[in-house]
């Protein structure tokens, strides 16, 4: 080419002009494409705020056909705009290629025109020896660096994945024996759930004396023991030597067993066990027609916490990134009796932590002991109000490091507020004084972030707080916070709380296992299954049957002692709400707002599938003759 005829000066000028024009053209097109690309990335055509707001209105007024049309038109416009922008980018791309090609061609012509004949350089080239030496040096350095980097990387990761795989595939070999000094409980003479035979293998079933036939017996015994412990100053069950004294005398009046059963004091009912003691619970209603919908109340700020009930008052919280509120709603009329704004708490952060949309700032359920109500929020603010909404105390626990948002519900025990605070910046379980909010005890835990909630259960006659997280399931003394037992077995991002029945703890998590654990001096796994696992809904158990619901629609029923599966049933839609048992029926609310009611029996028998007409992820609360369901924006009361 160098010997070819060179372009004339006039041609070169022309090509220079073309090069400048093509260069500017390409630059402008490139800039426009990038601007369009940025714009297209910002807008999601299926998630436009205006349309979302209109859709919400349509859900409230499903018969509004004009609104429906308006939504369709706006949606079509949004999609057209999106794809027009895409077309613009594509066309711009072609134009850019054309401009660049022209630019390149012009430059080639100009360079060809300017090419000079070769001239022998007077500079001496570097000697081949120098080049060889340098090449050897840099290749040696490069090789050593590569080996060093490989070894450092290998050291840093430390076979992390392989170790975790080993743990997951062989959990038995990693079971941590509970130290003796933590297990010095004496088995009480009147142990309510029968004798505990320590079995070495997980497949043997322990002998049980006085096996309860009543569905709720085991839950009753747990509540009985729990209340007994609350009402006496001494522990009558033969407590560990290092147990602290029970409830102090200056506490408020502690609710009796009957009070707890009559009400719905925490997430999943008394003790958080998923059993409701109320009667005459409705089994049919229809949100669309309003049949058996007694009232519906709009909740000012949304939240995913489930309602709690005491007497004629229902309590909820709602929050967004700027505001936190506690609501009290009249059980009979649905009227909001009071709203307390949660603010001015010492140590409360100025800005709320980042949470995901499906967790929000008010995910944890409230708790009540009949004297006060307690609430906690995503930023670590915890507050106690009296039953009229007057603030008693408030404090900040520190912003929980939680990539979805803090979600563990509260529960009360004696005069203590129990908080499961398994967060990225130091996991722990703690008890605050109900009266003052002072920290009574705090037990650090070696676990990862958990979204499960504490459960109160009677283990060998002793009330225990049972917590689930990755990798431990553990039981704690509510008086002292001492760890009574622990066992490894659950991994992943734990959402479901434990179930308990007849001395057996049931835990599950998706991509992990469903485990039945026998806590005691030698805590052991009775059985396990990995067929159906739950990532959100907590399981619930009666004396004989364990019910597991999943977020993909499958529900299974197992024998609590053997793990034998009695039945499985698939519903069209999954649930985030936890199943509740009331009057020997399981109430399972799916994500679309349909309540699947079936008998708590060894054979699947559907009772009804009433539809609310609104989506819901919250667990229902019960009072006599009533069910209370929370949706995104409303609280429904169902009853005849």
């Amino acid at each position, binding site marked *: 080419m160098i010997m070819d005829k060179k372009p004339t000066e006039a041609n070169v000028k022309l090509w220079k002009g073309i090069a400048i024009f093509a260069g500017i053209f390409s630059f402008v097109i490139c800039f426009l494409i990038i601007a369009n690309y940025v714009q297209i990335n910002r807008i999601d055509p299926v998630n436009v705020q205006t349309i979302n707001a209109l859709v919400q209105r349509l859900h409230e007024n499903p018969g509004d056909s004009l609104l429906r049309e308006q939504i369709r038109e706006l949606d079509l416009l949004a999609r057209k705009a999106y794809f027009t922008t895409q*077309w613009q980018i*594509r066309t711009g791309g072609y134009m850019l290629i*054309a401009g660049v090609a022209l630019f390149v061609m012009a430059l080639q012509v100009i360079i060809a025109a300017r090419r000079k004949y070769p001239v*022998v350089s007077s500079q001496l080239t570097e000697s081949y*020896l120098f080049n*060889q030496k*340098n090449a050897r040096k840099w290749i040696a350095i490069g090789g050593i660096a590569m080996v060093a980097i490989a070894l450092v990387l290998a050291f840093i990761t430390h*076979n992390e*994945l392989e170790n975790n795989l080993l743990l997951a595939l062989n959990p038995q070999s990693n079971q941590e024996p509970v130290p003796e000094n933590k297990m010095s409980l004496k088995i009480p003479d009147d142990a309510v759930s029968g004798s505990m035979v320590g079995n070495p293998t997980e497949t043997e079933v322990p002998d049980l004396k006085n096996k309860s036939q009543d569905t709720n017996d085991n839950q009753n015994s747990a509540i009985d023991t729990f209340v007994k412990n609350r009402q006496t100053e001494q522990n009558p069950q033969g407590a560990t030597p290092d147990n602290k004294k029970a409830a102090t005398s200056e506490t408020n009046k502690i609710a009796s067993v009957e009070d707890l059963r009559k009400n719905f004091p925490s997430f999943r009912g008394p003790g958080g066990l998923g059993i409701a003691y109320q009667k005459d619970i409705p089994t049919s209603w229809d949100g669309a027609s309003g049949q058996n919908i007694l009232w519906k109340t709009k909740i000012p700020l949304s939240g995913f916490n489930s309602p709690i009930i005491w007497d004629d008052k229902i309590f909820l919280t709602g929050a967004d990134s700027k505001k936190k509120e506690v609501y009290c709603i009249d059980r009979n009329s649905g009227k909001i009796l009071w709203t307390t704004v949660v603010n001015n708490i010492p140590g409360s952060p100025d800005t709320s932590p980042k949470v995901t949309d499906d967790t929000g700032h008010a995910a944890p359920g409230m708790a009540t002991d009949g004297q006060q109500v307690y609430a906690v929020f995503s930023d670590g603010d915890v507050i106690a109000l009296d039953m009229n909404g007057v603030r008693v105390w408030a404090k900040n626990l520190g912003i929980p490091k939680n990539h979805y948002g803090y979600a563990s519900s509260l529960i009360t025990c004696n005069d203590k507020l129990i908080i499961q605070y398994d967060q990225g910046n130091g996991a722990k379980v703690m008890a605050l004084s109900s009266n003052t909010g002072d920290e009574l005890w705090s037990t650090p835990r070696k676990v*990862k972030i958990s979204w499960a909630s504490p459960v109160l259960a009677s283990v060998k006659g002793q009330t225990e707080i049972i917590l689930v997280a990755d990798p431990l399931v553990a039981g704690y003394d509510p008086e002292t916070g001492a760890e009574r037992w622990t066992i490894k077995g659950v991994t992943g991002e734990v959402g479901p709380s434990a179930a308990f029945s007849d001395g057996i703890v049931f835990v599950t998590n998706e991509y992990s296992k469903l485990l039945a654990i026998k806590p005691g001096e030698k805590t052991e796994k009775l059985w396990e299954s990995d067929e159906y696992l739950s990532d959100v809904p907590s399981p619930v158990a009666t004396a004989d049957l364990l019910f597991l619901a999943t977020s993909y629609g499958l529900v299974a029923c197992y024998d609590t002692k053997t793990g034998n599966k009695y039945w499985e049933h698939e519903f069209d839609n999954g649930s985030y709400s936890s199943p509740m048992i009331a009057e020997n029926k399981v109430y399972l609310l799916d994500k679309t707002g349909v309540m699947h009611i079936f008998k708590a029996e060894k054979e699947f028998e559907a009772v009804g599938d009433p539809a609310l007409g609104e989506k819901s992820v919250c667990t229902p609360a019960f009072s006599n003759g009533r069910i209370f369901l929370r949706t995104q924006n409303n609280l429904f009361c169902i009853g005849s």
Partner: protein
Amino acid sequence: MKKFSVLFLLFFILYFLPGTSYAQRFPKPEFDSGHVQPPTLTPAPRAEFLAWFDVLVLIGSLSAASWFVIKKRSRKGVFWVSLFALAYFGFYREGCICPVGSVQNVVLAMFHPAYIIPATVVIFFSLPILFTLFFGRTFCAGVCPLGAIQDIVLFKPVKLKPWVQTALGLIPYIYLGLAILYAATATDFVICRYDPFVGFFRFDATFNMLFLGGIFLLVSLFIGRPYCRFLCPYGVLLNLTSRISRKHIAITPTECIQCRLCEDSCPFGAIELPSPVKPAEKRETSVRRFILLVIIIPPLVLAGGFAGSMLHENLASVHPKVRLAKQLLIPSKEVTEDIKVNIDAFKTSGKTVNELYAEVDGILKVFYVGGWLLGGFLGLVFGLTLANLSKFKYQPDYIPDKGTCLSCARCVDYCPVKPENPA
């Protein structure tokens, strides 16, 4: 020149005009009313005879390029063939199938009998190697679209120091080793995934890949064919084959007269300069060094193998199943859409987590062995390169380095010696 310019312009206008009138469609919305969406229809695969047509075009292009390089010694001819290849194999065929990526198909077929490699892919892999065996790297010169796109933007070539070139010239071996490892374990086709230019050919790529391609093209303005010389894994095979090629382009058509006019003609630094009659160091020194470097080859192989085996978990993290298991066992705080989709897909697969974990355990064991082999191979390459850099070979003429010369025929125009005017 004028004619050429007009033709060029016409070609581009005609090529791009249809692209501006694509029909607009948007996807079906999600219905709550119970409307059943009709099944998605997938387009029919490309006709098989067209794949054979591509083979014919490849043969034709390789033949033309070889003829222009060896027989005609015409840079112009090579340039036009490379433009055609850029248009056909690059923009029309969108960079696929290409011989560079076909290495992976061949490796996958070798290690996974369930994968039936099409005959056309085998031909795409072997034909350029065959032509290289006879004529040198004429594939690189005029047929590879990746090389062509870099070539046409080379405006102001800057010569790299020879030792820099030699050192950087080892990177393709690393890339080849990784590509073979990942293809053999059916993990990924990394050569295709990280092809910096395919986004331009398809007018579609992620922002990162387009950015990377842009960087490569920017670098190509000054440094000739950076991808070809310092990354292309297929180039390793062509390099080794070209060293024993039957024919190869020579700068001079007859005898070199050491006029030095061609010294700066190669933008790729592929011309071997004449070596001095007397070497600048004692023979004993160089022999001793050579023997030492040969002796350390086995320890280098072992060290490399050990380092590679230690890195097996990191290497395996590219495997989608390993990534999924890692996310399930060691959940990351940032849950991206990609992770959510993979987990949802796993949920619907019906597999249990234990099955997944058992599979991943097996994959890690394979990568452990693969790590040893990869590291050992790289240790061998480094060792042999070091040993080779101690050799002295006397040669009086300006000749192309048979391994690194891309046979682009730029140098031939610099040589004043003509066949009809012997020195």
